[in-house]
């Protein structure tokens, strides 16, 4: 944990005010399942785990939601998918992969039975609707994280070559 400040100002009524940042520099191991998923993303490959009921989980579930057993079977899915639901983010914050207004969306990737939360670079909320087709835009510099998918973009507008 870090915190504290020395840059203060005194406002009209004599009160002190100062910026205060409270932050935790977490770093963690990801375990075998997320390791395979994130390593795949780095190599522009999206995979999910297959549950006992045959459903493909993307992002991968480490344990079967039905039986609780560890999941070891994998299935590749496409980097294209469908918007299930979305919400406009007019003011991106530090750490967002996009630093201009974008949409948060649940995306059902082709071949997956669960939804992935990610950003859609659509320009304006007026052009978005549930059911639209999107495809992944890969980050220029892979980092071994979910941000290796920089965002999704509308399929009919897509310019990058998605795999």
């Amino acid at each position, binding site marked *: 944990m870090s915190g504290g400040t020395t840059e203060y100002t005194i406002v009209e009524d*004599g*009160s*002190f005010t100062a910026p205060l940042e409270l932050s935790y520099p*977490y770093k963690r191991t990801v375990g075998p399942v997320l390791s395979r998923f994130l390593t795949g993303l780095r190599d522009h490959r999206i995979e999910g785990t297959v549950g006992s009921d045959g459903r493909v989980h993307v992002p991968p579930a480490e344990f079967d939601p039905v039986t609780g057993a560890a999941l070891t079977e994998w299935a590749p899915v496409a980097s294209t998918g469908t918007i299930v639901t979305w919400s406009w983010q007019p003011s991106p914050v530090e750490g967002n992969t996009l630093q201009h207004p974008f949409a948060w969306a649940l995306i059902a990737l082709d071949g997956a039975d669960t939804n992935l939360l990610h950003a859609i670079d659509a320009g304006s909320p007026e052009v978005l609707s549930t059911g639209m087709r999107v495809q992944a835009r890969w980050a220029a510099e892979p980092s*071994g994280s979910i941000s290796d998918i920089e965002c999704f973009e509308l399929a009919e507008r897509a310019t990058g070559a998605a795999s």
Partner: protein
Amino acid sequence: MSDDVLRIRTPIGIKYQYSAGPRVSSHLHGLMDGRFVGKRCPTCHLVYMPPRNGTCAKCGCLLGEDVEVGQRGTITTFCIVNVPFLGQTIKIPYVAATILLDGADMGMSHLIQEVEAADVRMGMRVEPVWRPRDEWQPSMENVLYFRPTGEPDAAFESYAGQL
């Protein structure tokens, strides 16, 4: 396999603009002058030093007039820190104490130095050691630590109500 993604960084933080408010700020202005300024509750007359959030914990009312309390005080209770931890800057064992400044009705926490940990005791009289004046900030860290004054110990009855 050796270059698989095994860990991720997930830092998290919040940036605040902290405002001390007028009541706590009078205390902070005092620290900028090398004085301990608390506040008196207009209802129960207890002197808060430091003045918390500007309200009386007992009565719930806003604290009233400023009260400058003494530089010296009495150790009401203390603990000897024997555990090393990340970021520790003081050699263990050292003493963190609750100090009842003369004229205050609330103890405040601070460090005790210039004495062997084993020699610290309840009732011991202490005084502050201030940082050089040009380093003063609106902060209790202007006081580096408290040290024994050499006066006779305070009578137990004088601080028994604090325990």
